[in-house]
């Protein structure tokens, strides 16, 4: 800190750099790690969402059989856990296709051929056994039972609630926001680069000091973000999520924990990098001092 004239500009530049670096790092994490198909697929596998969704479906059809009189097996024999997994993954991929402008609308479909066959067979058998005339009402009942079951299966497979989000118009808003977000990211990179260049220029007379300011930037940025993230993970904050649909609960809390873990890890690494920079600075200082002492 030989030049007091540059001391305050360096503090201001470091202060700006801390937030710019934090913003850049967060936006990179969100764009390349958190808001990706891969992240949601990982949570699906980690949380066994297919199994949970299938259990929820079993429970629903078993409970419904009391009022409809249609045995749960009529539906469950035609839908497997693997079908649910494909349904969950399909809902994720369709959501990302929409967000990335590959599709112009969000719509998820599953293959219900087996289900339609199973329900139709059950009703035909029921009608024959009870001498029920297959009239228009009968056909309507078959169709409504199939439709209701299909809707329920699609709803259960939509563990991340992309359907609900799209229904309320929020998916379209997220898509527009992501478009703006990409522009903001470009701005962030430019600002970070400019501030970094200015800091380098301020440190050109004593280059080793650049490591000190970069070290501070890394440590403070790391502390600012990793501390609250670690608090959230340590207190298991997300487990208090209110939704009790087991598959939705697991999907949402699993995803929130996944991104919190990801962000905390990234910022702990940032903090460690800051420590390395500070160590480098102290080593360089020592070497410079030794050289000066020798010269004297």
């Amino acid at each position, binding site marked *: 800190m030989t030049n007091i004239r540059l001391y305050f500009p360096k503090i201001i530049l470091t*202060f700006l750099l801390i937030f710019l670096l934090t913003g850049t790092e967060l936006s990179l994490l969100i764009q390349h790690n958190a808001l990706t198909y891969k992240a949601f697929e990982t949570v699906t596998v980690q949380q066994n969402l297919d199994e949970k969704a299938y259990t929820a479906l079993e429970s629903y059809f078993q409970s419904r059989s*009391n*009022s409809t009189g249609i045995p749960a097996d009529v539906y469950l024999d035609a839908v497997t856990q693997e079908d649910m997994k494909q349904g969950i993954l399909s809902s994720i991929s369709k959501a990302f296709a929409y967000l990335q402008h590959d599709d112009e609308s969000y719509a998820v479909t599953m293959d219900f051929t087996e289900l339609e066959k199973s329900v139709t067979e059950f009703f035909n058998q029921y009608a024959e056994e009870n001498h029920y005339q297959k009239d228009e*009402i009968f056909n309507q009942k078959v169709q409504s039972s199939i439709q209701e079951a299909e809707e329920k299966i699609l709803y259960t497979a939509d563990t991340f609630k992309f359907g609900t989000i799209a229904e309320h118009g929020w998916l379209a808003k997220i898509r527009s926001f992501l478009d703006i977000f990409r522009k903001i990211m470009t701005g962030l990179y430019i600002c970070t680069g400019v501030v970094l260049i200015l800091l380098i220029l301020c440190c050109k007379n004593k280059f080793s000091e650049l490591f*000190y300011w970069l070290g501070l930037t890394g440590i403070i940025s790391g502390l*600012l973000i990793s501390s609250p993230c670690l608090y959230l993970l340590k207190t298991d904050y997300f487990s208090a999520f*209110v939704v009790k649909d087991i598959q939705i609960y697991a999907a949402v809390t699993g995803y929130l924990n996944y991104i919190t873990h990801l962000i905390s890890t990234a910022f702990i690494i940032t903090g460690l990098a800051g420590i390395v920079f500070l160590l480098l600075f102290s080593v360089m200082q020592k070497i410079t001092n030794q050289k*000066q002492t020798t010269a*004297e």
Partner: protein
Amino acid sequence: MADKKNKSAVPVYLLTGVFLLILCIAFCIAVLIKPYETAQTYLNIIFMDQSMKIAPSSGLDGLVIKENQIETTPVSDIPENEQNFYDEGEIIRPVFGEQYAVLKCDAISLSVPVYWGSSAELLERGACQSSSSVVVGEHGNSVIDAHVNTFFADLNQLKAGDDIIIYTNYGIFTYQVSEKIQFLNTDKKYVLPSVDDRLTLYTCEAQVLGTSDSRIGAVCTLVSRQFYHPAGEGNES
């Protein structure tokens, strides 16, 4: 000399770091405090495990649902010296949407909260008693219904002679199934006021094809009324 100069700079380096850290934390707090205060209520709702949470969009606006803790210890389990019951006593009249009783039937493993009044939201939570019928404990017909796909799924398995016990905060009322009934939803004869003290339970008939117009249930005759407090004494519970 260079070493001495370097040592004197160490506190400056340290203090600069601390100063920057405090400055950044203060800045974060200043920037985030307002959005946090705005979001706090929502965060508390989203991340608070409330088993009886009422979603704003669930159509419950204006309906106040009140849950009550009701003692359901069977009379046989109450020590004899504490069995101070009265044949006539004070009735606590519930308000619409209040859970005022627990209906139990060991024969079909039934234990269901009973709400005063009937609405789709209340039927999701338990059995409902029509407010046009008499409160359990009063003389006349108490009519209780629930969904066949939830609480009254096994109502058709009731047999004549099965005991039905209703626990309230003012007493315990025991009924016995006297008649199994089936009637059309347009037929009101079982839900109309009666001269005798009875309990009428009913639900929809489960049917595969279409919504059922038929109702099934049971008429139960009063066996005993055991009030916690005698008439005129008031009831503090």
